[in-house]
């Protein structure tokens, strides 16, 4: 009898605990008392950059951008709350990091270097080294569930965000949701994409000379100007002058990327099946796409060592030496661009000097991009 009574006494507690859980997860919390009056954010596109495609269903708002910035810096997206987007995309390194491959949750290592997040809102030819995401919104979904990155599942993230006292307000203010249950991965991805679209850089020395027409005669040195000519295959004095063929993959005006996927001859293979990381080929299933990776922007390249999709080169000097050597031939290397360049030591110095003119220090000093939790 005592046992039955004890059980009966316990029932309300059990019921109560279930009810609490259900209020949070099933019925959610009404948010309609919180004002929803988002402020439209208009991007100013600097000279030299192309148009940016803003999806009709994800217009930029001050509230959405701020929410995206917070999510970007918040480890809440990861399984053990140790990894945020900013763990691998550090602002001081042009939203890149300084390791060949970045550690994820529990120190697990991936096999690719993080990509620099700079002017990515202008890019329209896929994201990630292998182009597997067509949009920034889709891209933002992937790292959360990658076992060597955040190792979390979105169902859990959604619950964490729905329960969070600050985020539920911010999601309401950004997207006008009426209930916490409407906080979803798609809205989180939209907010992250909004923040990423604001990551605009256009104030390197080369930008100022080329696109802002800064008359300062000392802005770009003669050495850097010679490097520019090598970069663009322009003549450096005579018909036999060296060509770096750099711009074939890194032009796009102030973007400094063609957004194309190429095999840049960094991996020696016997056949096209032998690439340890097939890159684009793993996505398309096309043999001749194996070993192809997206040509990254060279903006702020001096800040984003190590280089290549696997971070194999520690310095820009090593990168230049690779291209000067012609690299490793395979059937799908860019035949016309990847071959011995015969650059002299002066040419290499000039090219290196030019690459440094693409550094925009105002970018990583921009308070709008910085960690809001610090």
């Amino acid at each position, binding site marked *: 009898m005592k046992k039955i009574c004890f059980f009966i006494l316990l029932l309300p507690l059990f019921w109560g605990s279930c009810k609490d859980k259900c209020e949070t997860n099933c019925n959610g919390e009404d948010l309609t008392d919180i004002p929803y009056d988002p402020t439209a954010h208009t991007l100013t596109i600097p000279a030299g950059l192309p148009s940016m495609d803003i999806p009709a269903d994800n217009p930029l708002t001050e509230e959405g951008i701020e929410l995206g910035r917070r999510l970007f810096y918040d480890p809440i997206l990861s399984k053990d709350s140790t990894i945020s987007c900013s763990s691998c995309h550090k602002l001081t390194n042009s939203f890149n990091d300084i390791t060949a491959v970045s550690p994820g949750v529990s120190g697990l290592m991936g096999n690719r270097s993080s990509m620099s997040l700079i002017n990515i809102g202008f890019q329209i*030819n896929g994201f990630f080294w292998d182009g597997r995401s067509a949009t920034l919104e889709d891209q933002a979904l992937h790292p959360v569930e990658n076992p060597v990155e955040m190792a979390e599942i979105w169902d859990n993230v959604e619950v964490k965000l729905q329960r969070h006292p600050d985020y539920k307000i911010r999601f309401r203010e950004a997207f006008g949701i009426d209930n916490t249950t409407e906080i979803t991965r798609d809205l989180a991805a939209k907010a992250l994409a909004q923040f990423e679209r604001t990551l605009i850089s256009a104030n390197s020395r080369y930008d100022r000379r080329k696109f802002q027409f800064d008359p300062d005669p000392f802005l770009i040195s003669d050495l850097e100007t010679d490097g520019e000519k090598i970069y663009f295959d322009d003549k450096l004095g005579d018909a036999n002058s060296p060509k770096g063929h750099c711009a074939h993959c890194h032009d796009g005006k102030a973007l400094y990327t063609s957004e194309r996927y190429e095999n840049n001859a960094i991996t020696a293979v016997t056949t096209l099946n032998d690439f340890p990381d097939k890159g684009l080929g793993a996505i398309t299933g096309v043999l001749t796409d194996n070993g192809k990776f997206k040509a990254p922007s060279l903006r702020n390249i001096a800040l984003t060592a190590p280089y290549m999709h696997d971070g194999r080169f520690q310095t820009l000097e090593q990168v230049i030496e690779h291209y000067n050597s012609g690299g490793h031939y395979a059937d799908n290397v860019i035949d016309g661009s990847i071959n011995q360049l015969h650059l002299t030591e002066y040419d290499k110095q000039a090219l290196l000097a030019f690459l440094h003119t693409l550094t925009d220090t105002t970018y990583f000093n921009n308070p709008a991009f910085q960690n809001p939790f610090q």
Partner: protein
Amino acid sequence: MLMKKLLFIIFIAGFVFSCKDNDKPSTPSTTVNLNFKATYDGEPFVVYQAYNYPDGQKIRFQNFDFFVSNITLLGEGTTADYVLSEVEFFDFEDNIDVAAAQKAQTVSFSKVPPGTYKGILLDFGVPAGLNNSDAGKLPSDDPLRQHFSSHFWSDWGSFIFMKLEGIYDSTGDGVFNQSDIGFEHHPGTNDVLTSVTKLKSFTLEKDKPFDLDLVADALKIYIHNGTALDLSDPANKDTQDFSKMPLAIELMSHWEAALSF
């Protein structure tokens, strides 16, 4: 009374139907499908496939793409000229096998006036008015914006109008490797815009879609007065600096022969 009501209903119905007729477009039209294929010496153009070059050596391509602008149907008799499109882009880089190469790339144009046309005019390249970096500001579905990153050559301030990329077996050993000559023919700038007219009469009938089949032959881009460009000469491997402008102009001038309709 009943008769009056019936008459009223008939009157209203007539009014409604007459309104509906007035809403219909009064100008008859049809759809034209511009179908582009690429070939090499008449064979389907397939990337990474070895072909015979006229000098007896082998050649292999990785890419063949180009802009076509001012695409105009040339009217005959009472039919006026009709501009189908300001600029389009055709890309055969994904012709990874014969099956892919045999499938045309198609751009469709609706609301084309029916009538008799004597041929078609196309400009290979980007028209001068659009050939500047402002094209990067166009909406993302515009061909010039879509290919701005890959085809705008900042050093010229111009789009690359055509890309033909590949490798020529200069060693003659039948194997492609770094000892051979990779080529990258990228003509651009307003000086190389090339207008081609193809005369062949055709009639567009109302609401009957019409297929306009065009073929671009990559080999013919390299044939000048019956002689193939000497690809064994490293000086002919690219068109990037301004000293190569004569070669760029020469290659683009071959579009008249390279295009068949």
